[in-house]
């Protein structure tokens, strides 16, 4: 599938700019957008400058990389990961980070959704001149997401997808000898997680919900989120004004129901206080549990030499797949076990009935009357 960047809108370029229309940062060019982060009206040049500089500041302040490091950009073809790949290449060249960047994609096997987005990633590979590696659920687990949804139902789709995708990214990176995966999680995602953990009282996750770098002890792969302070809307605007090639369809399987309610609350809050996303992240960074409320930490320190199967110890290995796990059997193997029990005994050859809602949507889109 070929792709051509959209053309610029035709405006009367000679029309004089009113003073009130000028950018609030440089005061010398016409403002074209209102920054969702602080409602400042800015011109395109200033927007590019502040957006890129803020991400650079995040990288430098948090010491995300070291020179010569090999990093994998988790690329799905969506707006966040496309902008991430673009920005990482740009900043790497501008500020001489000395990074060796590879695109790493996971094919979950969602017909009509992931196959289209992977086509975008393949175009990105050529556009940015970066190597690409694709790992698939089918190859790793012998299941596609469409098959999983057909077997386990749509309600739990995010649980399966989340666990398998996380593991697939790690396995893909390991295969390439890369120890650092960067993902396009943005400020909105992070703020939503902080709110959700407070609302459902998930104390175990509360303190970690705003960590920019996450790594289990003993794991060779670390993950980081350079877009931690970047608003989703600004990422979309950046992709739009830079005319980046990205895939804009949301996953057709249902999002987690409770996260949906937190998202709705965030949308309302953002309408009355646009800065609320970074405000929530600031709060999240300052949420500290009382010592008596840290059962996991206590257990870990009390049982460092113990081999108790029920104790959470970072760095354990799954008995079946040898992947990192806090339990005897990792979460992915547990889910696979449940799936295998319910797999249909007989299947039709070339059966496409398991292809999910995405395929139906695509078919409907191409119908004409």
């Amino acid at each position: 599938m070929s792709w051509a960047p959209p053309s610029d809108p035709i405006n009367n370029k000679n029309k004089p700019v009113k003073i009130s229309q000028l950018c609030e940062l440089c005061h010398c060019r016409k403002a074209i957008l209102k920054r969702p982060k602080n409602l400042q009206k800015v011109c395109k040049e200033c927007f590019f400058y502040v957006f890129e500089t803020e991400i650079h500041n995040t990288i430098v302040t948090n010491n995300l990389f070291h020179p010569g490091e090999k990093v994998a950009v988790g690329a799905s073809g969506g707006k966040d990961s496309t902008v991430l790949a673009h920005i990482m290449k740009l900043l790497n060249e501008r500020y001489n980070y000395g990074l060796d960047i590879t695109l790493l994609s996971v094919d979950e096997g969602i017909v009509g959704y992931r196959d289209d987005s992977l086509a975008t990633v393949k175009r990105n590979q050529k556009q940015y001149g970066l190597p690409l590696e694709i790992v698939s659920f089918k190859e790793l687990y012998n299941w596609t997401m469409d098959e999983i949804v057909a077997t386990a139902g749509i309600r739990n789709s995010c649980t399966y997808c989340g666990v398998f995708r996380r593991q697939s990214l790690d396995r893909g990176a390991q295969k390439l000898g890369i120890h650092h995966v960067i993902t396009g999680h943005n400020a909105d995602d992070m703020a939503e997680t902080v709110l959700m953990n407070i609302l459902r009282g998930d104390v175990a996750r509360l303190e970690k919900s705003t960590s920019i770098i996450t790594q289990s002890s003993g794991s060779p792969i670390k993950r980081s989120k350079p877009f931690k302070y970047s608003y989703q809307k600004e990422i979309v605007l950046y992709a739009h004004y830079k005319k980046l090639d990205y895939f804009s369809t949301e996953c057709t399987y249902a999002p987690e129901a409770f996260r949906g309610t937190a998202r709705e609350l965030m949308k309302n809050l953002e309408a009355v206080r646009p800065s609320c996303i970074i405000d929530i992240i600031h709060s999240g960074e300052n949420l500290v549990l009382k010592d008596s409320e840290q059962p996991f930490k206590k257990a870990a320190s009390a049982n460092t030499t113990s081999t108790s199967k029920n104790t959470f110890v970072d760095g354990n290995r799954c008995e079946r797949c040898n992947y990192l796990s806090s339990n005897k059997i990792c979460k992915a193997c547990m889910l696979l076990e449940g799936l295998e029990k319910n797999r249909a005994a007989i299947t039709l050859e070339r059966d496409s009935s398991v292809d999910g809602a995405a395929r139906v949507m695509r078919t409907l889109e191409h119908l004409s009357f």
Partner: protein
Amino acid sequence: MTTFKCKRCKETDATLKSRKELFCDACFIKFVSMKQRKLMMVDEFYRDHFKVLYGKDLVDDGKSKILVPFDFSSSSLSALDVLLGLLKEQNMQHRGRVGFTLELLTVFKSDEDRINIENMWKELRSSPLYDESAWGFVNYHMVNANNFFESAKELQHIVLHDQDFTTKAIEWRNESDGEYSIQTLLDRCPNRNTRNDMWIFIVKHIVKKFTYQQENIKVILWCQSMTKMADQIIGLVVKGRGAQIASSLDSENADAEYGDRFKNLYPLKNTLLSQLDAYCIIRGLDKYTLNYEVKSDLFLNATDTDTSDTKTKNIRLVKNMTINELARKYFDDIEGEYSNIISTVLRTGDKLKPPKIETSSTDNHHGSSKCAICLNTIYDDPAEWLRNIAVNRGHPVETEEEQSYYDQWKASKIGLQNEEYLTLRNHAWDNGNDIDLCYGCTINLNGIKTKELVWPKNDSEELQSVLAEYEL
């Protein structure tokens, strides 16, 4: 119509349902008041301040006084009702002796407010619900919110740097700069949220300052329901004040911001607002509320019309709501599907402690300072944090055309306004003192167009300055 029996006494017909349990009026009143009384006796300190003690156990020579901020909401009316009930009980059982006396305090904004409050207080005093003897243990005080500025020894002009988010304060002179009132401050706030934030702080400060200046008041009994406290927790998170959650819920330690003179008690924190509303309706206190609408949602015979009205009202006003109101709306909307969410939020808040104070690598004075506006401890350097995540410098001028636009902007009204700010900023940076603001107050100040406000200089002298009380 089918009738159900009360789950507690199993004799009387149930009149209301709260958290899936059916109650009759009498059992419900007992249920709510016991929750409050239990938290009033939560530890030895509070027990000693509420119980009738004799001999060597006597606290403050038997003159234990409890300050109750009173705003004529269902929460404060029901809390007062329980307290008066306890006083009556103690008075009877101990033959004229009680464990404590009450100092009620209402903060008002305008003359109109004052008149309404005064009339409502008189009505409550003459209510047939209470004997005249009950009021013998209660003193009522009213303070005008303008005392916040009027009683301050010294006012300061706080200016925020628009690019690096640092702050300076210069002296504010009444003679040349004019009077500064609560209304002036609230009018300059850009939205309801900031106004609400400022107002909440001003009322809290007046209450705590009033307590600080009284002898023998060791406990402030805040009438905040579980619902309101959950709203506040979410509100603090959304306003970037997450670090303050632990101190805002702390009832174990004395209030360090006010010289460790008293503790803050939240005895309604296990009671939902809807339960307090129902309590007021049953006790007939709903007619004494001011600026507050009591809801009858819990009653079995409640009509649906009220709720549908409120729902449409909420939908229409979302953009005009404050953060706390939005959190309340979320709880109302979600309660059916995910129950106990309000208590979960409160329990999560209770599990938090203040974060470690991070000393800035560049500027040591940020180490353990207090915010010059809200008096809360500053745990990190908000200016540095904001500088890293929000760049405030633009792309440079590149062409002649751009330079000409820049010159036009500088000479324009917008440019001149900016010039006015820059003059003030330069003056503050040449003559002012460094002051520290917490993250939440920095964001509030950044939202004010002129990025400045006038505020009392908060120090021990300010706390000593006497608040003028309005005599009833």
